[in-house]
């Protein structure tokens, strides 16, 4: 048995390769767990980077209300603070960055800034945090989003906070890829139909062959529960 947050976490963990440098920011419990899972399963030399600067925290069990607290430094291997993580990405040496956003369009534009206009917003969003510089510079930017609906996957974003090296967007329904020009449907999650995704998406899906996400294995689920017993990965659902 697994739910959407389990599935998304496992799907994301599979995207990470051994020895990659990977960054996770604020409000990022799901990717934080996914990094730990990848490290436990297939990427033992993954380099996990985070805002408080703890490189490869031994565990994340204390990070219950924040993915940016000092608990991540307590049993880390070394220290590499946020400033330097950004510099690293600028130099082209950050392999993967996890970022959020509120609206995404067909052309891979990301909005984390405002609904309405920038100077007179209808809704002021929290802001893109690192997105505006990390999505263009990380080798692979992965976006995860707990909601998949037409207000999220829109025809035109209200504001372009950034675009660039977007690699994957993982949602509760599917995984989008980005071919440099537009979002493509990479894989449907188990039990999800192409119609369901299309109904929840305001632009026309681009796909040629339909792939399906492999369901989580028993080992993945067991390891996941061991790493994240409090189910922090489900906080935003």
């Amino acid at each position, binding site marked *: 048995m697994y739910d959407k947050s389990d599935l998304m976490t496992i799907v994301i963990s599979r995207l990470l390769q051994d020895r990659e440098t990977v960054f996770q920011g604020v409000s990022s419990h799901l990717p934080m767990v996914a990094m730990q899972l990848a490290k436990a399963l297939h990427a033992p030399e993954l380099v996990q980077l985070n805002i408080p600067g703890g490189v490869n925290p031994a565990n994340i069990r204390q990070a219950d209300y924040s993915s940016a607290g000092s608990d991540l430094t307590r049993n880390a291997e070394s220290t590499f603070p946020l*400033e330097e993580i950004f510099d690293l990405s600028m130099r082209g040496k950050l392999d993967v960055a996890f970022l959020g956003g509120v609206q995404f369009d067909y052309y891979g534009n990301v909005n984390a800034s405002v609904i309405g206009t920038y100077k007179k917003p209808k809704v*002021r969003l929290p802001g893109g945090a690192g997105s505006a510089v990390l999505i263009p510079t990380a080798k692979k930017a992965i976006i995860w989003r707990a909601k998949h609906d037409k207000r999220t996957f829109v025809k035109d974003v209200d504001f372009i906070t950034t675009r660039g090296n977007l690699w994957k967007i993982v949602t509760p329904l599917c995984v989008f890829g980005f071919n440099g020009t537009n979002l493509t449907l990479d894989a449907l999650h188990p039990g999800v139909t192409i119609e369901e995704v299309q109904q929840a998406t305001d632009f026309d899906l681009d796909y040629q062959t339909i792939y399906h996400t492999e369901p989580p294995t028993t080992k993945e689920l067991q390891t996941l529960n061991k790493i994240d017993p409090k189910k922090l990965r489900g906080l935003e659902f």
Partner: protein
Amino acid sequence: MKNKKKMDLKEAVDQYIKDGSLLAFSGNVLHRAPMGFIREIVRQGKKNLEVVKTAAAMDVDLLCAFGLVKTVHAGFVSYETKYGLATHYRRGVESGIIQGNEHACYTVICALRGATMNVPFMPVHGLQYGGLLHENDYFMVVENPFEQETAEPVTLVKTLKPHVAVIHVQVCDEEGNAIIEGAKYEDALISRAADKVIITAERVVPAGQLKFQKDKIVIPGFLTEAVVEMPKGAAPCSCEGKYDVNHRDIKAFTEADSTDQLKKWVASYEKQDHGRSYTDRQRGVKS
């Protein structure tokens, strides 16, 4: 002479925070923000403040709740998932009262680096696309003067020089040598970028007592203008090694839905925020 940096909270806010000041605060989201100091800013009603921070939360939201903020320069203003959005900041921006100058967290860092180096701008790689570049006059794209023919254009961010950095730490000596346990976030940076540095500390020890921990000193005393002893000075935010967030108090704030409730929330900290100095004065202790 020796201990003139040590002062009480009221004096520090009164002396160093002016209407219109550009302030930088320690910590990140709900961690080690100088909340006690910020509550005193509210009590003293300092106005038209500007705040610069990579990722802010309750610190900025509290000032916005009392209408004390003119401009926020930040990459992110929100509580994290569990506590929702920074309602007062949002409403302020949406109603046009507050100018929300959105940065990438990194362009905040670069703008502060500009201040540490006393240069008017800092080149920044990465900010190459999108609306932030077009909508904001603190970004510019220029030619690279070293290779005008062939080179990529370069984005510049305008320097942000805080008047005051307020930094809450676990321990500090009377001279302002400050030790930060756990994550340092951008605190070293803001301590160098700002014109003046105020340390609020869980504990203030006599000069010289940190000598054997000198490698842990993040802010050397000669950068520090004022030192305020403030146990629980980051509460209800966390302070590594001392206390975690106070869940109930954060909720009480985020759920307050009238000015009256907000005022009561600040008032409920009055004794805690001034506690040590009050006690000292009653005892006749000179500090």
